């Protein structure tokens, strides 16, 4: 296996085979392989095309509302009594999460490739909504695969997708969560490969998706780096982001990877704890394996069968992780720690009360870790948390966890 990065940089991967060390790759059926190669070719052309860049920048500014603000969370900082906590406000983007960054990039690519139909998978529904949104904007029919369990716990987003003209197909296989939705999307793709573009929502899947999604999401970290330099005159001490597949996290982390003085922490869904199977902490409790087109850390049994996992947050309820995170874990550059359902729920409520911001349950995992470490840090130290999405979609889940009817 080739090493993607030199000793001097963590930012040069993947290699030409799509590998980040032993992770990544193109583990797909032959039917898809010619299309994957075509996609790679088009992506390489597009990323070097100033017109593509200009159109994406224009849409990011006027349609999605970028740049997103870097907000000093004064209420939470006071509440914690330690380091200064900043939120990167991806929740303020059009559609309410970071997912739009990737969808705008990929829909332009789909159009460039002459595709006629969009398919997507979704967990929490944020990527499904963003996919349905850009499909509506650019006039594509859109089919979103969503686990039946997630359809139930993310009803507001299901309705939004339908309003936007997308067809939502519930998937009842397995636990009816993101993994099962991705299997079904891949089956659709292999069947309709000629005219269909698969808009993958996270920095995972076969090469070039992990690199491509990272590039579209890196706008988060590029902006945050510039903003903190403007607002504080220096780089942060700690970055924190939640990791499901890991697109918001890699988007924030990547531009900082070579700033060695910045400590970088990814948060996995600890569910009910890592002792049993009720969690989605693939990098803390899994081992390397091959699923959904890439090699990465996976929750699996000793026979290589994939486990379903559990998280209170539908967006983190996935037994794998993007391959670059696996590589960053093994290289030691990024630390990955679990946060339990209860801790995320507590952070959700605290943030709502002291900041007047209702965070997505995914983002609440990242905030929960900031709540653990900030009180122990100095007052002039800085923590940036990626507030990847807003929590309106989660109010039903939170209400039922709190034993309330709405």
């Amino acid at each position, binding site marked *: 296996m080739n090493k993607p990065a030199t000793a001097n940089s963590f930012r040069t991967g993947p290699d030409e085979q799509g590998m980040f060390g032993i992770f990544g790759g193109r583990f797909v*059926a*032959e*039917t898809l*392989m*010619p299309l994957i190669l075509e996609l790679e070719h088009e992506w390489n052309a597009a990323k070097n095309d100033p017109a593509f860049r200009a159109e994406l920048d224009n849409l990011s500014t006027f349609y999605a509302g970028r740049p997103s603000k870097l907000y000093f969370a004064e209420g939470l900082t006071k509440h914690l009594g330690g380091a200064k906590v900043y939120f990167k406000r991806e929740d303020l983007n059009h559609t309410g999460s970071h997912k739009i960054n990737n969808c705008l990039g990929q829909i332009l690519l789909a159009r460039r490739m002459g595709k006629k139909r969009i398919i997507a998978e979704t967990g929490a529904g944020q990527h499904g909504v963003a996919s349905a949104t850009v499909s509506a904007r650019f006039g594509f029919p859109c089919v979103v695969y969503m686990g039946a369990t997630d359809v139930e716990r993310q009803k507001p987003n299901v309705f939004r997708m339908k309003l936007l003209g997308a067809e939502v197909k519930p998937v009842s296989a397995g636990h009816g969560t993101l993994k099962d939705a991705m299997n079904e999307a891949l089956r659709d793709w292999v069947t309709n*490969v000629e005219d269909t573009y698969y808009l993958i929502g996270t920095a995972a899947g076969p090469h070039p998706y992990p690199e491509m999604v990272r590039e579209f999401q890196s706008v988060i970290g590029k902006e945050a780096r510039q903003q903190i330099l403007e607002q504080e005159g220096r780089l942060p001490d700690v970055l924190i982001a939640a990791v499901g597949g890991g697109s918001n996290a890699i988007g924030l982390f990547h531009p900082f990877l070579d700033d060695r003085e910045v400590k970088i922490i990814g948060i996995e869904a600890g569910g009910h704890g890592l002792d049993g199977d009720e969690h989605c902490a693939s990098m803390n409790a899994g081992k390397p394996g091959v699923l959904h087109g890439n090699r990465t850390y*996976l929750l699996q049994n000793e026979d290589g*069968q*994939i486990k379903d996992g559990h998280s209170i947050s539908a967006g983190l309820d996935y037994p794998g992780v993007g391959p670059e995170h696996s590589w960053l874990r093994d290289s030691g550059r990024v630390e990955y720690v679990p946060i339990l359902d209860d801790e995320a729920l507590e952070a959700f409520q605290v943030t709502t009360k002291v900041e007047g911001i209702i965070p997505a349950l995914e983002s609440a995992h990242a905030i929960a870790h900031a709540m653990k470490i900030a009180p122990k840090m100095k007052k002039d130290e800085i923590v940036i948390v990626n507030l990847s999405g807003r929590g309106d979609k989660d109010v039903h889940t939170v209400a039922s966890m709190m034993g309330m009817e709405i």
Partner: protein
Amino acid sequence: MTTRIDRRMAKLKAEGRPALVTYFMGGDPDYDTSLSIMKALPKAGADIIELGMPFSDPMADGPAIQAAGLRALKGGQTLVKTLSMAHEFRKADDETPIVMMGYYNPIYVHGVERFLDDARAAGIDGLIVVDLPPEMDAELCLPALKAGVNFIRLATPTTDDRRLPRVLQNTSGFVYYVSMTGITGSALPDTSKVSVAVRRIKAHTELPVCVGFGVKTAEQARAIGASADGVVVGTAIVNAVANVLDGKGGRTADPAQAVATLVSGLAQGVRSVRLAAAG
């Protein structure tokens, strides 16, 4: 070096008829029943056996094979048990080629070198691993070839002439042509399109070309067998098993007998190709 696959294909070529390649899911619905199905296959007229390795996330399979894999896993099947089935089968049959078919992760987790040692010891002749395209040959294909195990590649309608040589490069045993872009168990496309595709592949290789995905009846087997060197049937066999299960752990008939009845009919289909050519 020749394998059981090479020898069987050469023999059938001499007989002037295509091979009947039968897929079943190892461990469906349980180990013992599945072994009895495996033993019944050659007697019913199967020329090559594809032994399915169940996987939790079979992303190229339709509902029938997905359900079969889940039944097998629920019944306690593992990769080690699937290898042991082959080993048991070999005690009484050292001629019928066995090809293991499935997905890469269970093999990767077992360890590639250890898997190849175990597979050879169990009398496995070939491998079909759906999620290992030629771009990933270093993972399993090249080690398998070195170990003397055939690595049978899938070629599909999207594999164009430019790509075909790459797909064929490290393929051995036979080439498995997937008749359509889709998942297992979909409807068979126009057989004339299939014969054009088979001719296209044969222009690039000396290897036998077997065609699968969508073949369910003796008539379809005969039609496909007229142009291909072999016909692969999978979903229909898996359905024959499912149809005699009552969903409560019981069965309404013997699964091995149900499979044998189906396979006998399919075998007549491929054998009538020779009769037609001779007559």
